[in-house]
Every structure is written in C-alpha cells, then in structure tokens.
C-alpha cells in the first residue's frame, strides 16, 4: 500500500500507535475484538469509500 498524500506524519503515527495500544488494553482481552471492529466501522465511515476500505482489508489480511 502506497502512502497517500494525506498520510500521517511520523509523530502523528506514533501518537496513533500509542493510543491504539493503550485503548486495546483498556478494552480488555474480552472486549478488544469488539472495540477494534467498532473502530474499523468508525474509520470506514470517515473514509467514505467502500473500495478504499476493501483495499485496507486486503492489506491487513496479508502476512498474518
């Protein structure tokens, strides 16, 4: 996946990295999947593109 022009800056990426990790811990093991799915749906809605979302799904499924 190539970097989009509106990609995160390094420092914003680091902020997202830390906040996502903390939120997963905050949700707890039982609820982390639920939390991540909610987050994905919110992000997908903000993307406003089922195609872009589909590309993200494929990228995330790689190399698991």
């Amino acid at each position, binding site marked *: 996946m190539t970097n989009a022009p509106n990609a995160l800056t390094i420092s914003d990426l680091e902020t997202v990295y830390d906040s996502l990790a903390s939120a997963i811990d905050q949700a707890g093991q039982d609820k982390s*999947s*639920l939390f991540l*799915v*909610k987050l994905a*749906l*919110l992000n997908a*809605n903000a993307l406003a593109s089922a195609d872009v979302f589909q590309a993200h799904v494929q990228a995330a499924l790689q190399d698991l």
Partner: protein
Amino acid sequence: MHTPTTQARPSIYYTYEVFKPWLPSEHPQPTRQKVVIVGAGPAGMVTALELARHGVPSVVLSSELQFSQGSRAICFTRRSMEILQQVGVADRMTEGGLPWRFGNSYYRGQRVFRMEAPHDADDRFFPIINVQQQFMEEYLHDACKANPLIDFRWGNKVNQVAQKDGYALLEVDTPEGLYALESNWVVAADGGRSGIRTAMNLEMEGASYEGFFVIADIKVDLPLPTERLAYFDPDWNPGNTILMHREPNGIWRVDYQLPEGETPEEALKPESLKARIDAQLAMIGHAGAKWEMDWSSVYSARTLTLPDFVHGNVIFTGDAAHLLPIFGVRGANTAFQDAQSLGWHLAFVVKGLGSQKLLANHSAERVGAAREIIDEAGKSTRFMTPPAGGFQLLRDAVLSLSLTQAFVRPLYHWRTSRPHAYTHSILNSAGDDNGLFKTGPAHGAPPQNVRLGANDFLLDHLGGGFDLLYFTDASFIPEALQHTIHSARAQGMPLRVIAVGSAQPVEGADTTLADADGHLRERYGIPANGGAYLLRPDQHICARWLTLDATRLQAALNTALPQ
C-alpha cells in the same frame, strides 16, 4: 385410512369449525381433472381463486378438517392486500386487521432505530396489516366455497403422486379409504414440509441458520400501539433478539431467540415459556402483567429454494417451493405473489392461450424472486441471529455504536417483503418505449396504485386479464388499435381497454377514467395523448409506449403470450 382429528383445535380467540370430510362414495367417480391443488393454505387457496377467475376449475385437497393451528403468518404487506383484493377478500382482512407502519429497535433500554414505512396518498392499503392466519384462511375458504369452479375437499390426504405421460396420478386417502385421482396438473402447495417435494427427491438450494426462535401468542393487555418492537441483547436473554407484534383480539406475538445449545423441546416447556415471557414483559415495564398462552412453536431461519418450480406435471408453490426467514414477513407474503403468478400462467396454458413456455416463465420469474428474497433475507437474518465469529462481532459492534453513532442505525432496518420486478421477463416487449420513460412503473414492475377519488383507486379497475391503459382526451380509440384489440380477443385473449384522460366515455374502451387533474398521467410518466401501458393479469407491466401504434401493440401481445 386417513383419520384427521375431529377435535376442534384449542384457541383463546378463534372458534375452529370442524368441516365434514369429502368422501369418494358420496360423489360420482372422478374424471380426469384439469388442476388438483394439494394443500389449502394461503398459496393453495389463492391459486384456486386465481385459476377460477380465469375460468379454470380446480380441486383443492386439505388433509385436515380445519384451518391451521395457531396464528402463524400475521403480517400482510400492501402487495398481499392488493392480491387479496383481486380474489375478493381484502375488505374482510381490513375489517378485522390492525394496520401499521412503524417499527422500533431497542438496545440497552434505548430506542436506537425507528422505521417509518412510507404511506403514499395514492395507496389504498397500509404498508402492513396484522391478521391471524386462521381468519385469513377462513376468508379465503369462504371465497373458495362460494365459487362453483372450486371443488374443496377436506380430510383428503395425498399419499402419492405418480407422473404419467401428460398427467399425474394421485393416490388420495380419506376417512373411508383410498381413491385415485387423475389430473393434468398438480399444484404442490403442501407447505414447508412438502411431502410431494420429499417423495420426488428434490433438493433445495441455499442456507440454514443455527439460531432457534420460540414463537408464542399470548393474550395480554398492553397499552401499546400497533408497531413492531425489536429488542437486541437484553439482560434476560444476552446476545439474543426478541420481537413483539400486536395482533387483533387482544393477542401479542412474542418471538425470542433461544440461547445456544438449547433444544426446542426444552424451550417449549411451560415453565421455560413462563419465565421468559415474564422476563420480557418486565423488561418493557409491565412486570407482573397477567397473560395467558394461546399457541407456541419453534422456528429456525432458512433461506432455501427449489431451482425450478415446474417438474413434469407437478408445480411447486409457496413454502413447498421455498423456505424463507420470518424476518421481513416473507412467508405468506411471498406465497401470495407465487400463487397470483401461477394462477394466470397455468390458466392460460390450460385454456390453450399460450404454450408451456408460460410455465417456464412463471418458474423463472418466481425462482428469481425467491433468490432476490433470499439475498435480502440473508442480510436481515445475519443481523437478527448472527452466526458465531465475524458476523456476531460486527453485529455486536453495530449495537454498541448505535447508542451514539447515527450512521450505523439504518443497519437495524431489515428489508420488508416487497414485490419482485420481473425486469428480464421474456413477456416484456422488446420494441416498446420502456427505456424512454422518465418515470412510472417499468418493465416487469408491479403497478403503481393511484387514488382516483373517494374510495376509488386505479388497481380497483385492473386485473383478471390483460389490461391496456390508453391515455387520450379524444373521444375514441384509434381504429387501427381497435382492430388489433378485437383480433386478440377473437383468439381468446382476455384484454380490457381502460381509457385515461377524457371526461366522456371513450369509444372502443371498456372503461374511461377521467383523470381530470392529470395525476394518473403524471405518475405513469405520460407526457402526451397516445401513450399506453400493457399490464399482465397479475398487474405487472409488460409493455409501455409514449405513442402506441397497432404494429407495436400486436408485437407486445404476441410477446406477452408465447406460443
């Protein structure tokens, strides 16, 4: 020897009549029948009534001596009412029914979605009306009984159907023993557990879902309007879904999903039913409300269809042809559309007005409808009763988000049964102006109803044969068109002409609708004189023209009745 029970079924609100069995010794030896309909549910009876409308007699066989046990189908759509209007029982449905158009979905005590079904001023009927199935069957049966073309036989159970050369041979069991019945056509309307389908080893295509639902009808006094209620993941039944509907006669339908692993037998134990219904009533703020059980059953969602409804001289219809989930009121409502379609297609074949291509078309159209329904119902079912894993997780995420995020709330709206448009039907005219219209019902679509005046709607005037809507303010239908219409009629085609747009009766038309304000022309997208629509006997559109001429009318009539 077939001995159906003569004990009236128990019910709080419905008094069952036990009918006398039809006995072969009391009737002349049967000759070869034109059509035998196996099953006297909604699909069977509407098929018989539609056939009779087209002048084709039929024998209807019911293995029982009374109407169905319990309320079963309770929600009937606008299109169902339009079909029932055609067979003469819509007024009785309206009299006893509870119409509604709002639905509410609740999660964690909050109403997270409200469905508001549109109700157009041009519609005669509400989006949905609630009537218990026994009443609906009684109304249909009264219509059958009053029709001299319908030979209704209670207590006649079909043991066997053998396909012969050009007909079928049925072995029928009665309270005095067996008799043989020959028929050119057999309509298998024998329900979801169709014995005929099983005996013929026909496989259905599609999916079955794991979740079980209890369906319970209770008599209870709840001060709530007639609106659909859906509760997701309540404290008393975590992870599962509950539905409630008001029925006539002080009855409420409560559907609730069973916890995983629980068997139907366990779920139907009186103490289990009591605890759960008490818990549900408490949750909606009516703890301790007095109630009484009328009927209960267990249901699981399936989305299955036969890939072809016509097998030799046997034609499957309704639940015998497909099994559809309750979410979206798709069982009886689909059966009515099947039966309406089958009625005219089969009648025209029996009368020799069209070839067996008509039956192939019926099957293609209705299998297409079943597949469309399965696709839509599958989405609803995956939300109502999600399979474990990804679908469960997504559904739960949507429930959680819906408390604060409006964008996910439309996912609560499971699509409701709607009439299928036969967009690619072989009966649609190729050389008409379908693509040139800016609005109005297109090829294969069900008709758009239009209010013409007080208690007077367009669909009141259509059906029973082909209808040509001809839009003109002139005093006569052009002679060349009249000539084409007369020659089609001379060949046996039932074809009525309805002129629209003239204050005076139009010569050459059977009926004239003034349409003084131009509203009907507007809804049908007719910009000028000379436009026309051709509707099939099931009221679906098969041709439309901005300017009709005799050559193109003839072509459309030829296409609509393949030889």
